[in-house]
């Protein structure tokens, strides 16, 4: 319950500090949102905080750039880019709108002003059993997922456990529909790149950590491909400071109003960002103006859903969120309570 704060001079330096065996529990801190939550709830007892926030590039509006590559355009941004910067970036809006939309209404303005992109990806789940110290749940080395018998209204409908968290990152599925790549360095100064789709693993593989990166990894930057016809839609109980009940990220390759191909991921429904290849496949060849065909394709999303006692409503919400994300991806309003009536 007391710790030192280190101010590394580079990401490699930060990685070395994380790997430094003289500390019992070094913890990386960027925006600090989730670290402070963990400290306040007495969930972690670090002896070193490695503060990478001062490594932020000194660029107004965040270091967000568009570059041309052999395989088309890509948007590159620093790991420390804030949610506000992503949401307000013209570059992101033009080239990969799903990324900006995914974080634009998350949490609160105050949180978005400091929370970082990398932090959003690596934040721990919001499961109330995980967040309360007295529950020795699977994530904390225990033998039980309390959600199964307990209060599971906000828990997973996919994944079949054994832990039923929903992955907390809005940004992760947005990266997944955008060929996202996460760049990171380790203690030896080696640069690595991990496709965002490989960044997370099921609790079946490792229940105590959601991501696949080694302990000394420090994310340096993130890049996504140009996905101009992409969109995000979340259903939330509250519009201020709330987590999505379900959300969907969609990217479309359009030929006129005909969907040539699609990529569809869901969030807040499984312990990891949840791919929906059956929906994507069913959308192939569908005209976005053909509401019936779109509806039919989206209904595929819930075929394998296995809700628990209190989260069956998520099964109803998911196809709706996907349809609305499709509308946004094709540049149309979502048709919800907040953009005018149908």
């Amino acid at each position, binding site marked *: 319950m007391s710790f030192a704060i280190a101010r590394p001079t580079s990401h490699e330096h930060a990685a070395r500090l994380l790997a430094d065996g003289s500390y019992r529990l070094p913890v990386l801190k960027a925006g600090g949102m989730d670290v402070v939550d963990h400290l306040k709830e007495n969930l972690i007892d670090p002896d070193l905080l490695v503060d990478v926030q001062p490594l932020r590039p000194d660029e107004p509006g965040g270091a967000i750039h568009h570059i041309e590559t052999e395989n088309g355009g890509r948007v590159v941004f620093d790991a420390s880019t804030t949610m506000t910067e992503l949401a307000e970036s013209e570059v992101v809006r033009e080239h990969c709108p799903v990324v900006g939309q995914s974080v634009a209404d998350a949490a609160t303005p105050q949180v978005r002003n400091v929370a970082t992109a990398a932090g959003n990806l690596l934040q721990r789940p919001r499961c109330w059993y995980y967040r*309360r110290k007295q*529950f020795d749940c699977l994530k904390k080395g225990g033998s039980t997922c309390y959600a199964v018998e*307990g209060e599971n209204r906000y828990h997973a409908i996919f994944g079949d456990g054994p832990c039923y968290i929903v992955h907390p990152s809005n940004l992760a599925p947005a990266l997944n529909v955008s060929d996202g790549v996460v760049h990171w360095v380790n203690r030896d100064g080696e640069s690595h790149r991990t496709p965002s789709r490989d960044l997370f693993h099921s609790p079946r593989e490792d229940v105590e950590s959601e991501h696949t990166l080694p302990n000394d990894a420090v994310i340096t930057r993130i890049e996504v491909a140009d996905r101009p016809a992409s969109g995000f839609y979340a259903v939330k*109980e*509250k519009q*201020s400071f709330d987590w999505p009940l379900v959300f969907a990220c969609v990217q479309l390759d359009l030929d006129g109003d005909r969907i040539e191909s699609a990529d569809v991921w869901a969030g807040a429904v499984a312990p990891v960002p949840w791919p929906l290849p059956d929906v994507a496949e069913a959308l192939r060849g569908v005209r976005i103006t053909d509401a019936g065909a779109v509806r039919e394709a989206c209904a595929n999303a819930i075929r394998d859903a296995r809700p628990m006692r209190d989260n069956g409503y998520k099964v109803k919400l998911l196809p*709706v969120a996907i349809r609305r994300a499709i509308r946004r991806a094709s540049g149309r309003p979502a048709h919800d309570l907040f953009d005018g009536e149908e």
Partner: protein
Amino acid sequence: MADETTHLPTHMPIENRPRNISRSVNDHTSRLDGVAKVTGRAAYTRDRYLDNQLFAGFIRCPWGQARLESFDRERALEVDGVVEVELQGRSGEYHGDIVGHIVAESKPALRRAMNALGATWRRRPSLTRLEDDMDDPPDVNAATRDLLSEAEHVFEATYTTPVQTHACLETHVLVVDHDGERATVYASTQGTSVVNEQVAEPLDLPQSKYEVVCEYVGGGFGSKFPIGREGQLAASIAAKYKRPVMCDLDRAEEHLDTGNRPSSRSTVRIGVNEDGTILGGRIHTWGGTGVVQRGGGVRFPSGRFDFGEIQKSHHDVSFNGGAPRPMRAPGHPQGAFAEELMVDEIAELVGVDPVEYRKRLDTSDARREMYDLGAELIGWNQREATGEQRRAIRRGFGVGSTTWGPNRSNAECEVVIHQDGSVEARTGTQDIGTGQKTIMGVLAAEHLGVPLRNVEVRIGRSTLPAGPPSGGSVTAPGTSPAMIDAAHDARRQLLDAIAEQEDLNADDLRLEGGNVYRGDERILEWSRAVRRMRNDRITGRGRSTGRDDPHWGEGHSDGVQFVSLSVDVETGMIRVDKVIAIQSCGRVVARKTAESQIIGGVIQGLSFALYEEKLLDRWTGAMVNPDLEMYKILGSRDMPHIVPVLWDKGQSGVRSLGEPPVIPTAGAVAGAVFNALGRPVRDLPLTPDKVLAALDSQGGDA
């Protein structure tokens, strides 16, 4: 004065306000301590960090029911800065139940000691909601049975509301500044006088040797009358070590163990004839009172409607949860939710418009007029028949009613005129955010006859004249007559002194805007007038006992609220668009704070309707959402356009306003959702899962 419309806090410019709207003497005064509060200059009790201060905290049961199996007191005592570790109990009956405490030199040391204690608990099965242990309602009596058998329809339904917590922004806290012989007690309380009385014993000092100070309160809503365990601990530790002490609860403790609005369940069997006449029936309610056996009363029927002969019964049901405390109109919002939705459902059953039906059933002539005004302001004529809409986004309109009796309280006030012309308005009562301080200043200035800027309001101290605790919406009604009398007394003394020295008749003199007039002639300006007093000050005194006082308001504070909202039937999301809140409160003293009270009541009512729920894990009995993240409270983007309408027809005196606006909102919201969907959602909060389930039971036309 600037253009008064620029001062109005509401969304409705004054020229557009409908008839019967109050035009009070004071239309524009901002909260006197508003700037101090929003800039952080106001020092709340939680802000009192003192030299040499100790910090005390509780050891609490983490489960619904559990026995303390093991702990290491010695290890906790070894933590640097730990002063004492005491365990009084070995078992807990609810999550948050206190079994001991730790005192330390700093908050981090306190926390380290809690960890070092390493308490382990053996969990036992617990009851987590009233449904786990409720009895059946008593049998319907013979008269009710006959009445129901005669009725052309028997309407049956069950309505439930969850536990709502007070969720005060400033969590419960007491700070004692003990210098070895005397003490100052900083309280965050609704009852400075209550703390003054209750702290004497644990503080072990005569009341003459300490002062209780409560200048600002970050919310109370009924949970901050007694000094509580935190107050007792802070005071007793201060007495023991003769040192300053703070005992403050964290956010989780605030949800767990500082009271709540108990959960409720209401089941009805009502006999109705085809023409809408309600013959009567049976209403049974249950209240979920946590670990105690009382306090769960549900105000249903409220008495606002004529339901014929009602057989009413109530059971309080215990379970392993924190005990209730009074919460803003105790028993009322949960009852009104059931009652208003029931009225709407019966109206639909017999084919009558809900507003017209209320005008038939309502027992108040004032509210009958308010229904018409509210219907006009909300646009009730745009309401479509219940259940007739087939769009994905459906609109709904709803209405609810409220009343509050003329409760009384005693109060003493002083108005002190100093020789330099400055004026103090003094009373010991506290401002729990209602605007009480502002009200006192406005009344003192107006009734003395000086500008408000001359008046310094001093409240929230046990050494000031005795003022009432703030409960039952009595603070403004109780103190206002006393402050008016005090101002009149001070004015009379000053004018007498002037008359004597100037050889005039005091009855010919008046004080207005700080100037002394004889007839239309200004004979003295303020700075010279105050030089005529014999001593260095004049103290005017006023006292009210609640009876036979000409400044008391008679009758009830009545109100109605209208809600329009939209429901997304694909997601079950509700967006409340507009709330019209018509409310009488006697004479309006300070419009801004009065309107703010109404807006605040509506917000709390909306939050109760849509989001709030203290959720105990059914397996372990632990509260899973003891924070402000998953214990959901209405946020800025969930806020509708709220239009407070102060009704002044037939109003006099200063009457209650704090509680009545929170009563009707949830019922009005539920009625509007019923109107939009054609199916009632009878369980709060009205979350998407329940809305979707209601639509499913309709046969899935969404």
